[in-house]
């Protein structure tokens, strides 16, 4: 895998814009990714994450701004850029009729790799992605998690200098998701540069060295997960969960409790440096939640504090 080259620029975007007709899906974003880091786009559905990834992947012409991938312009050097990328698209596009191995073989040929080399790499990759025992199986009946792991294996067949993973675990059950996270974590440890999108804050927190929070085509915050939490929200959150219909008026009564109050459909979140004291203060105000929870602040809270909305609707 590609280690070394630490710190070399991989992606540079300035004012990057994507329009579909008169709708602006990506609205002038700036970011840069260097070799060896794991960089994330965190944002809800429709934020413009996939549109950005496709521009980086040189399969979608930009509508404005500047973009360099490996210091090349995707508008001019599409094939050269794609030759060095490993792409895991949001929707799997494996050949379902072919076997697991054949999918790697066919794909590897597009990178000009000789079959003998693909065979060698396929054995390693399938072992690494825990699919070795499925080598000769048709893809169609495989589980969603296995298909996802195969898509990742396929993206690695050309030993890419940069991997683009668009929502690598969306739609997977928790166990399958953890299996994927584990593999991505190992790739990261080997020094592979990863760029991923997600609307799961735990995914972003676990994997990303640095991330941007995206909303409605714009970048609204940037930093390491820890920085973002430190900068945008209090250390802890008191969650008051209400039974249906019992939440009315509670926010008014809680005025002044904690440092920041967010109201959602079924709960109230209070950001605070001291959860226990804030919970006690809230109970003094006579609110009657069904249950309470004190937890550390997460990227979800960062997103909520910046946009007033939740990541997953």
């Amino acid at each position, binding site marked *: 895998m590609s280690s070394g080259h630490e710190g070399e620029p991989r992606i540079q975007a300035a004012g990057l814009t994507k329009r*579909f007709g008169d709708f602006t899906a990506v609205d002038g974003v700036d970011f840069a990714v260097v070799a060896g880091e794991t960089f994330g786009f965190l944002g809800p559905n429709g934020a413009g994450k996939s549109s950005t990834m496709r521009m980086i*992947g040189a*399969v*979608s*012409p930009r509508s404005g701004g500047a973009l360099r991938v490996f210091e090349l312009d995707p508008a001019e050097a*599409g*094939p*050269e850029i*794609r*030759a060095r*990328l490993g*792409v895991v*698209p949001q*929707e*799997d*596009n*494996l*050949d*379902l*009729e*072919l076997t697991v191995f*054949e999918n790697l073989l*066919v*794909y590897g*040929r*597009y*990178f*000009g790799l000789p079959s003998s080399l693909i065979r060698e790499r396929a054995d390693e990759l399938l072992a690494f992605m825990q699919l070795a025992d499925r080598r000769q199986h048709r893809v169609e009946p495989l589980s969603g998690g296995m298909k996802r792991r195969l898509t990742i294996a*396929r993206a690695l067949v*050309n030993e890419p200098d940069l991997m683009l993973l668009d929502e690598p675990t969306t739609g997977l059950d928790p166990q399958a998701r953890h299996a994927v996270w584990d593999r991505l974590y190992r790739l990261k440890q080997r020094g592979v540069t990863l760029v991923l999108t997600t609307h799961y804050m735990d995914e972003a927190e676990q994997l990303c060295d640095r991330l941007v929070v995206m909303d409605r085509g714009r970048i609204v915050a940037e930093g390491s997960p820890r920085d973002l939490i430190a900068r945008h929200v209090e250390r802890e959150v008191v969650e008051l969960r209400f039974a249906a219909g019992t939440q009315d008026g509670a926010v008014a009564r809680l005025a002044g409790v904690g440092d920041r109050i967010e109201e959602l459909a079924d709960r109230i979140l209070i950001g605070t440096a001291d959860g226990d004291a804030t919970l006690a203060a809230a109970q003094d105000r006579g609110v009657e939640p069904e249950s309470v929870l004190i937890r550390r602040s997460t990227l979800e809270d960062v997103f909520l504090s910046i946009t007033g909305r939740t990541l997953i609707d």
Partner: protein
Amino acid sequence: MVEQAAHVLSWHARSYRKSWRATITVAFLNPLFFLFSIGVLLGGIVDEGRADLGGLTYLEFVAPGLLAATAMQIGTNEGSFPVMAGLKWTRTYHAVVATPVRVLELFLGFFGWVALRIVVAAAIFTAVAAAVGAFRSPWAALAPLAALGCGLAFAAPIAATAGAVENSSVLTAIFRFGILPLFLFSGTFFPVSQLPAALEWAARVTPLWHGVTLCRELAGGTAELWPSLGHAGYLAAFTLAGGALAIRILQRKLLK
């Protein structure tokens, strides 16, 4: 470019190994059934060397027609649903263009595969038809190429259509209301001069009629240079225009 297209073609060949059983009826069995039932058996009853058939026996008349019509059917089948699947259903085309392969190369590999499918089926049909005495002239050896032109003249515009439309019911409608009537009425089974004048004119502008006529004149030994080039040029024009359009549509759909 050729190398990348060859990789795409070999992907199609590999997929075909899994699904060839589903294609042998349309590509091989049906045409041969028609050849025997209509050409040999029905032909044996109706034959009196009628002048309408230009002096050909009915078998000699219908076999080249079936050859061109078979090419048309393979071209439309391979040009239609597989393209829609690659774009929308299995999305495998999106996987291809995420690699160094360009859309043009994807199309050429796909189209080369369709050509191969047609030419192999046409060669087999031609061999069987020759064995049962359906051809008068050694020029019949060129009939598979004429059939190839006919098949591609359908495959290219159909591929463009399959790329452009959102719904597969459009393709189904083309099969039912376009391809089937063409098969029956464009000179495969009877001379188009039997049709009312307006319909005869309509039949003569279809690529199938040009394909049928070219195959028939080669097989019957009546082909002349300029008319044959005219038919071939007509088929090539459909192929090139349809292909150029298909490439543009695929670019629009895959690189948006």
